[in-house]
């Protein structure tokens, strides 16, 4: 593959996360498609391939071949070459971008629109808890135990705290740092609500050792991306974003089968990605990493080499990953403060990385001169650890 054939992100679109009961699912996909295509400076008719990231709010909306309905809604019937869905839970966006890059590099696609919309924030919470309990957990061996996704988060948190010696206040500080970033993001669910460590620790114990405010709030959200080849980007754009490296590990399916809950698949995934990119953790200008619970993010940052082993939560507590800290982490507020938009939580983080590297994150949170971002996603019960290393390219 020559450099000209490699994939280039040229545009992103996003709708605000939160509770938007009157914002329809299909309408959100269409709105964010238009926003992404306009941001990319393309016409809708340039799009030849649509990759859809699945929703979790409704099995019907997922099973309805909705990716082809999007083609029709966007007036691309008779023009689009292909439309389909890719699914690996919270790491879907990472795998989708790999797929898009492969399609572009091999000449199967020229302009790809990646779309995601979720209605989790408007769906009944009890139904969503049961949906999450029915999926991603082995029904024969673990479901009868009463396992929930908060319990999965608690199992990981307990092990991380034991392995690292992190305190409850240090774990809570992860949420506080993310909230500080969310306050700078107009699209974040909790942009207007400050948060302190005391508030987190005073919230009720939902699933020991997790407090309520350490659990992500389910949100509606939508994100879109446009990717093309570097050769085509060069004709129309001064700046784009390339995938410098990628790595991944699927470490388990059942949480009971993970060999080390405080490590997961990150070290192997990170080594693979850094080797391909030819640069390392110390070269990163920012990180956008899956953060459905404080320990999930802490473990990932350590595996990615962005924190010393056992030190991620303490580094959060010392302000190292907050606005003004030594490394900006989850500058959109992450799943914990921008909102957990299902499979889209990781998608929103990836969109934020692309925005930052394009220099379009807005005056309040743009990292000056950002050129390298470490992105990480994880699906299901943190069954896989997926790494994308992104780089801004100037013509």
């Amino acid at each position, binding site marked *: 593959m020559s450099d000209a054939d490699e994939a280039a992100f040229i545009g992103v679109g996003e709708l605000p996360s939160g509770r938007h009961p009157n914002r329809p699912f299909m309408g959100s996909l269409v709105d964010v498609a238009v926003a992404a295509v306009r941001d990319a400076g393309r016409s809708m008719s340039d799009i030849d391939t649509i990759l859809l990231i699945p929703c979790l709010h409704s099995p019907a909306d997922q099973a309805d071949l909705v990716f082809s309905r999007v083609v029709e809604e966007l007036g691309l019937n008779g023009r689009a070459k292909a439309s389909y869905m890719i699914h690996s839970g919270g790491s879907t966006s990472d795998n989708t971008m790999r797929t898009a890059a492969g399609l572009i590099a091999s000449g199967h696609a020229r302009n790809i629109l990646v779309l995601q919309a979720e209605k989790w924030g408007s769906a009944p919470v009890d139904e969503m808890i049961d949906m999450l309990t029915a999926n991603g957990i082995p029904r024969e061996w673990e479901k009868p135990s009463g396992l929930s996704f908060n319990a999965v988060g608690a199992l990981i948190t307990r092990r991380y705290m034991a392995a690292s010696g992190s305190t409850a206040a240090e774990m809570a500080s992860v949420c506080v740092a993310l909230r500080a970033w969310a306050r700078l993001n107009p699209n974040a669910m909790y942009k207007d609500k400050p948060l302190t460590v005391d508030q987190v620790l005073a919230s009720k114990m939902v699933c020991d050792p997790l407090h309520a405010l350490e659990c992500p709030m389910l949100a509606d959200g939508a994100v879109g991306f446009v990717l093309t080849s570097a050769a085509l980007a060069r004709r129309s754009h001064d700046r784009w974003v390339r995938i410098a490296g990628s790595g991944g590990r699927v470490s388990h399916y059942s949480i*009971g089968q993970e060999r080390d809950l405080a490590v997961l698949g990150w070290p192997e995934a990170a080594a693979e990605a850094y080797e391909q990119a030819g640069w390392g953790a110390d070269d990163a200008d920012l990180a956008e990493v899956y953060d459905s619970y404080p320990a999930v993010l802490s473990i990932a940052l350590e595996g990615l080499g962005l924190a010393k082993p056992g030190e991620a939560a303490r580094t959060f507590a010392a302000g190292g990953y907050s606005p003004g800290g030594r490394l900006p982490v989850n500058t959109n507020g992450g799943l914990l403060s921008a909102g957990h938009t299902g499979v889209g939580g990781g998608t929103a983080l990836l969109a934020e990385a692309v925005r930052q590297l394009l220099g379009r994150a807005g005056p309040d949170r743009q990292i000056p001169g950002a050129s390298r971002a470490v992105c990480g996603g994880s699906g299901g019960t943190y069954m896989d650890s997926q790494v994308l290393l992104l780089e801004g390219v100037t013509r």
Partner: protein
Amino acid sequence: MSDPGMEPLTRPYYDALGRGELLIQHCGSCGRDTMYPRHRCPFCYEAELGWVRASGAGVLHSFAVTRFGAPTGFESQTPYALGVVKLAEGVQVLGRLWPDGDGGWGAYRCDAPVRFRPASEDEIARRPVPWFAVVHQ
């Protein structure tokens, strides 16, 4: 609980739990133990799978106590504790944890020794999972 065709894997395991025994799947071809029960041995891919009785000894890798937000059917169980247990045989399982003497789980720690302690036949009929108790040292 079981999808059609899963009974050869689930039935012997659930029935044993109901009798107060913890079984581990064992490959007659390569001799290795595996959990959870599989359709084929994940090491040699032969289908000569049988069962052996676990010693019941293990180490608690991590645990969680659900107090709020239990899934449907578990609301009346709260608080209840789950743990990932590494069994002496080298395989691991997720199970329930018995409350300790104080009615809570204060005696449980990561890496503490635990032992399989069966639940009643009625409990297993409703919720077929192994139960473990902390070993006081």
